[in-house]
């Protein structure tokens, strides 16, 4: 009994399926082949009365006809839509008709859809009337401040936030001294590898080339005065006191500062920082201190390395441009350079490390919880980091001179 019913149902379904398929299958196959068969939009105009014939197959993913080209230049006061030969349609047709209705309304044309199937008419009315002015305003609003993280109106609040961040980090550092076992050495080591060995090549190359360039420019000028040997003074003092620390800092601001910001911002997006806070682990202890300390330990070493390569670059160029031997260069530089010159570079590098670390971590924490926010955080960490480094250097160099360092 049940089986018979079941079979009956199946045959019913089968006939239904073939019935449904038959009228559609043929035109569909043609549509695929010939562009013209796809859908038909035709307009007949007779003394101000237009009839719009719509037919064929309408699919949203195929190009919609351009409405204005259909209408042409005719002046019409009444437009009747007929859909007698419609075969298949999706939401593209109601959308098209809705656009047309808007167009007619703007021109006081009667838009008559009495002949259109009721379901199509009902769908047509479901599209909202677009308010174009609103759309535009929200677009404008998003480009008011093109500078990530440097919006001037909030500068007071930002300074407060930065000071709070630095203060918290300091407190966290003090509490670390009382419980050194809690420090996350593993994370710190990972970061040290990142900002040390992994940056050796680029820091070395840049220092070498800039040392060489300095020597080259110096040699050209000094040669005219017959003071070739002073190239050694120029190169060694500039590299030790300024260039070594600066290059290291700029490279690490780009590499490490950006990485800090991106890592922290990404953790914020994923709710990982919230998870830390609810486990009762202050995110500063966990995220900022290991990174900051890694930078503080590696920056001076990297600066010494940059100093060496800068000197080597200077020496190489000097050997080939002016009349100085390697031995002379060495003796002169050794006599000239004191611990104070190297020390100044090291002191600067420590200050730069703090600036890069704070800028990177702070920008990370400050980031929005979106993927765009992560990118903006990294960008603004680099911008802030380099800005701070150059400004700090401009202040530190004269101070060192005054103090006689």
């Amino acid at each position: 009994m049940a089986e018979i019913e079941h079979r009956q149902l199946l045959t019913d379904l089968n006939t239904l399926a073939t019935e449904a398929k038959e009228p559609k299958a043929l035109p569909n196959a043609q549509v695929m082949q010939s562009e013209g068969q796809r859908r038909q939009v035709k307009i007949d105009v007779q003394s101000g009365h237009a009839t719009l014939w719509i037919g064929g197959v309408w699919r949203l993913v195929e190009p919609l006809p351009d409405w204005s080209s259909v209408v042409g230049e005719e002046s019409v006061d009444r437009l009747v839509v007929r859909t007698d030969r419609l075969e298949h349609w999706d939401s593209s047709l109601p959308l098209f008709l809705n656009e047309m209705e808007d167009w007619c309304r703007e021109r006081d044309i009667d838009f008559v859809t009495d002949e259109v199937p009721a379901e199509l008419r009902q769908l047509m009315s479901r599209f909202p009337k677009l308010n174009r002015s609103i759309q535009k305003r929200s677009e404008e609003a998003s480009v008011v401040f093109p500078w990530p993280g440097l919006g001037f109106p909030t500068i007071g609040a930002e300074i407060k936030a930065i000071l709070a961040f630095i203060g918290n980090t300091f407190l966290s550092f003090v509490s670390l001294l009382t419980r050194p076992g809690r420090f996350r050495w593993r994370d710190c080591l990972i970061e040290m590898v990142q900002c040390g060995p992994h940056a050796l090549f680029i820091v070395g190359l840049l220092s070498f080339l800039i040392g060489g360039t300095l020597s080259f420019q110096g040699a050209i000028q000094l040669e005219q005065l017959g003071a070739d040997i002073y190239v050694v003074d120029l190169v060694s003092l500039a590299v030790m006191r300024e260039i070594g620390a600066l290059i290291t800092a700029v490279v690490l601001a780009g590499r490490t500062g950006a990485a800090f910001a991106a890592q922290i911002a990404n953790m914020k997006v994923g709710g990982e920082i919230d998870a830390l806070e609810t486990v009762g682990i202050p995110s500063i202890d966990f995220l900022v201190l290991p990174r900051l300390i890694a930078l503080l330990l590696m920056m001076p070493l990297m600066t010494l390395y940059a100093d060496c390569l800068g000197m080597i670059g200077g020496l190489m160029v000097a050997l080939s441009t002016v009349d100085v031997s390697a031995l002379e260069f060495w003796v002169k530089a050794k006599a000239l350079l004191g611990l104070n010159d190297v020390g100044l570079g090291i002191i600067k590098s420590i200050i730069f490390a703090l600036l890069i670390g704070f800028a990177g971590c702070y920008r990370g924490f400050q980031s929005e919880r979106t993927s765009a926010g992560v990118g903006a955080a990294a960008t603004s960490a680099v911008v802030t980091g380099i800005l701070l480094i150059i400004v700090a250097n401009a202040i530190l160099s004269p101070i060192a001179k005054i103090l006689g360092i």
Partner: protein
Amino acid sequence: MESTPPAIESDRLHCGYENVVLLKDLSFSVTSGEVFFIIGQNGCGKSTLLRHLVGLQEPFSGTIRYFGANFTDCEPSGRLELLKRFGVLFQNDALWSSMDLSQNLALPMEEHTNITPGMRAKMVSFKLEQVGLKGYETYFPRELSGGMRKRAALARAIALDPEIIFLDEPTVGLDPVTARRINELILRIREQLGTTIVIVSHILSHIFALADRLIFLDRKQQGVIAEGAPRQVANSNDDPRITEFFHQQLPSK
């Protein structure tokens, strides 16, 4: 009035984001050892309420008390003491992506217990086994499926055997068998440790299976529109919002 203070007590809480108030004058309390559900339609503020309860966001006004102690206006150190007693499962697992599962689970233990690394490893394996993730200690969150991540996050939430567990949609995305295991685990934890459990969920069968009591939040009303035992709320309420919510899968009984 009971003699012991309730585990959680919310007193005229106003919560929301910067310029949106989502919930107004929210007062409820959860007795110790209760399985308490927060339900309501998408976007009514359930996850937001949890964020307030665990101190990730400050309420506009009102207070939250745990075991009688004020949590909202509390010194950072006192808050830390309370936080140690919580376990939180976020709606999006929020596992620490740079650490594997064993480190994810071990970190809270490292911070708040003094058990040896060997004991910690044992504990991690035990917790992972409880959520059906035995043998996944060295997997990173990115190497797990969505349901497995959810379970790993649950394991992290119960890592410290907390006194209060907040679970935001713990069984969403889990297959029915695993979901039932997790529900059994939740009940077992409550039974063995007397843990207070706050759950956000939409799955009616789980609400009926687990909940002692629930509150029903509504977005328009900005607050609770029904409170009580699940059957009582479902059956003896003719508010259309509630009947509609419970309509589909009322259990036969």
